[in-house]
């Protein structure tokens, strides 16, 4: 591996991450209004109180959260905190820390999305490869049509349809949540089954909502690869069709799929906001949605920062690993 290349890519990644976290700092602060005064005012109005000086109270809290400082000072403190993974506290749900919220939600998001993404990748790759193969039986082509149709439906709409049919009308699957309200979650089989049961509908909507893209991209790559000279050469040497299919065609057609998989896995931490909201799934997406609605700057920043970091690291790793996957690719000075 070329060390110069690695160092250049590393610093490029750092620069991209730096720009992204700067934008991450600026954008929440562009939302009009003051989140502290808004939260205080609403709370006080609900109780019918008029005698409290909201402005005075808000000053105390701004000082507490460091929001009374000039933006430049806030920005410098923000960068310093990020280097130590100090994501701050939730403005709306003080004193809970952003890290606590993320850590409680991450396993759910990662579990749901990683599994769904891998299932989608495997299914999409295999189906795409099979339908591109000239010997593919005709009945298989027909079978693929429903998959393609569901892929044109946005996955959150698919989620609503699945929820209505399978939870409300037929009551086959739960109506939402990560597990049953009565379940005492522990490291046991009952909990595992219950959690898996609750994950079925969200997973199906994610899988079927994005399957078509994987199928089509794999199919396109397979068709492209089949026309290459080495395939003809392998056929002329008498290599079996099955071996040509798997080791010659699929293996070469998989490269863009792996890139896509790495990029997709890099973004799973951000959650599938709409799916999590529809299914009341306790993942990062639910927290992000609530944070945006409540203008919880620090939670928004924390989640987006983790997303930026995971995507940046994934891209960096892909760049380093690509030559290992495809020997034709070499680092150059």
């Amino acid at each position, binding site marked *: 591996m070329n060390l110069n290349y690695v160092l250049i890519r590393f610093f490029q990644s750092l620069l991209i991450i730096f720009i992204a976290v700067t934008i991450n700092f600026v954008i929440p602060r562009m939302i009009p209004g003051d989140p502290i005064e808004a939260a205080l005012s609403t709370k006080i*109005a609900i*109780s019918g109180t008029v*005698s409290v000086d909201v402005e005075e109270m808000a000053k105390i809290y701004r000082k507490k959260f460091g929001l009374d400082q000039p933006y430049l000072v806030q920005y410098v403190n923000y960068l310093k905190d990020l280097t130590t993974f100090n994501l701050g506290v939730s403005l709306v749900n003080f004193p809970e820390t952003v890290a606590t919220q993320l850590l409680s939600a991450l396993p759910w998001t990662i579990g749901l999305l990683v599994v769904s993404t891998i299932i989608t990748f495997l299914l999409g790759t295999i189906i795409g490869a099979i339908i591109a193969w000239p010997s593919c039986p005709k009945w298989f082509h027909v079978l693929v049509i429903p998959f393609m149709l569901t892929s044109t439906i946005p996955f959150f709409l698919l989620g609503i349809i699945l929820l209505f049919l399978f939870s409300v009308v037929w009551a086959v699957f739960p109506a939402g949540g990560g597990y049953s309200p009565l379940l005492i979650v522990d490291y046991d089989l009952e909990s595992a089954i219950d959690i898996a049961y609750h994950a079925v509908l969200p997973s199906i909507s994610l899988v079927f909502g994005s399957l078509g893209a994987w199928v089509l991209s794999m199919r396109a790559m397979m068709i492209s690869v089949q026309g290459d000279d080495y395939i003809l050469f392998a056929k002329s040497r008498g290599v079996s069709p099955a071996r040509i299919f798997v080791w010659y065609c699929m293996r070469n057609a998989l490269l863009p799929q792996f890139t896509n998989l790495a990029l997709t896995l890099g973004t799973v931490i951000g959650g599938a906001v709409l799916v999590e909201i529809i299914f009341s799934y306790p993942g990062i997406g639910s927290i992000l949605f609530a944070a945006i*609605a409540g203008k919880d700057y620090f939670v928004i920043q924390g989640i987006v920062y983790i997303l930026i970091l995971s995507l940046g690291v994934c891209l960096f790793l892909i760049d380093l690993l690509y030559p290992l996957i495809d020997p034709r690719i070499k680092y150059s000075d």
Partner: protein
Amino acid sequence: MCQKSFLKFVLVILGVYFFWGHNVYAIEKVAREKTLVVTPWSDTTGPLKNAKNWHIYQIGNKNQREIGHKTIYEALMYTNLNTGELVPWQATGFKYNEDFTTVTVNLRPGVKWSDGVSFSCTDVKFTLEMLRDNSDLNYAFIYQEWLKDVVCVDDLTVQINLNKPGPRWFHMNLALGHENHQVILPSHIWGDKDPKTFTNYDLEKSWPVGTGAYALVSSNAQQYIFDRRDDWWGTETGFMDNPAPERIILVSVGGDESMAQMIIADNVDSGHPLQPGSFKAATKRNENIRSWNRKGPVWGAADGCGYVLFMNLAKEPWNNRDVRLAINYAIDRKQLSTIGYENANYPVVLPYSSYMSGRWITPATQKIIDKYDRDKTDHQLVAKHMKAAGYEKNSKGLWSKNGETLKVPLRTPQWLAPLAPPMSVQLKKAGFDASAVLEPEASSAWVDDLKVGNFETMFMVHCGSLGEPYQTLKDLHSKWSADNKCNSPIACSRYRNDEYDKIIDKLEKIPGSLDDENYKTLVNQAVDIYLRDMPEIMLLEELHVVVYNEKYWTNWPGGENPYAAPYPCWEAWNLIVHNLQPR
């Protein structure tokens, strides 16, 4: 041992562990029919927060509001807001001195904390003075303004000394059963802790400690679990039997649709309200679901608030009474309810909620309401008042003066969105150049603008109508918007009337009572000025479709049995827990 064998060995051990299970918390299962499952109120969605922090007075910590008040912590007293009746609990009564600067509270003998220590005046003194002395705690602003000190006459007699006369102070803060989430803490636990950092959470020590009938046994971002205590003081003293639910679980909810799905599936018993449309759809799928009223179209329960149209009285033309009256007579309140809320709300002209209007709209008050007759749509009256204000209709049929039309931008915070479009059409029909201006979802710029007077008209809620007229009439006093700045969104009309101010000043010094003729006379004088001047235009009473699922639990409060106000985030929901019966 070779690698393969070792791997097999590890897999077998994991399988056994996994299969047989290992309950870290040793929490027993409780049958669904003995469990009460609730969700937070509508302003809290998504995963539960501060699961490992039960310092209920830290800013932002909502545990008391969401569930603590139904389980661990009890109040000195509650109020059934439907009737105004006080419900003594940890305390048996209270009495003011002559000038309302001291309130003496009698505690109930036999009340104990969950760890067996007696509840006493020491705890009350500690809690209230802690709130007074720590400015960044929740409710500290109340105690800093009002509390001088607390004196323990004896273990069961508390003397609370105030900085100024407060004829309503004790009731509003420690006995209301509403959003006054001020409960007493155990001084023997908290006494040596730093109130800024103590988390009050340690399940091994059974913290948090409260006097309530339930103890926390598990809490994480998805569920809080509370088990009933068989040693609750209420049963030991003969005060009350143990509540029926053996377990209470708080689960998170995603919103209106999520709650509808969960309650249809019998996964929850109460909590997040439903929109009228969602409620009707849910009841078609599950006949066990009901709301405050068993029959519609008005399903919901009052929440002490009313929808109101504020006009900025510090600006022209809103400082002109004729313009305000004209706007009022252009509005059809019933139609607003029909179009905006599917007929689920009542029209109102006073800032009185159903919690007190039945008692406080006396014959004398009704006479005043009838005299002014503000709840009607009359375009002739619109014309009369607009002409009196110097306006004429232009060629387009819009009211104008000096060549300019009267623009009415109806600024609307998101949660009041249903009001804007129908009212905009109503005003246009009456000749006003009206437009609905909806605030962006995440924006709170309207709060800042309301505060500094940078608005023309705005929809808001006028809250606080829980027991007596003073609670909302006071919000029109000019002191709340001195220097054109207002502190609370419910007092931002910028109305200035010395005569009105003097009446409110007098009312402030006396407790509200239907037996006090002086109080009632002053109230009616204030109501007369209010309806004469229309400094704000009340529209509809705010109601929410609270939901109950009777699959497992019955004897919920309702219109036919109003033993408590039904809002899950209000302190007096504890009365509901103690009244529920298994089906």
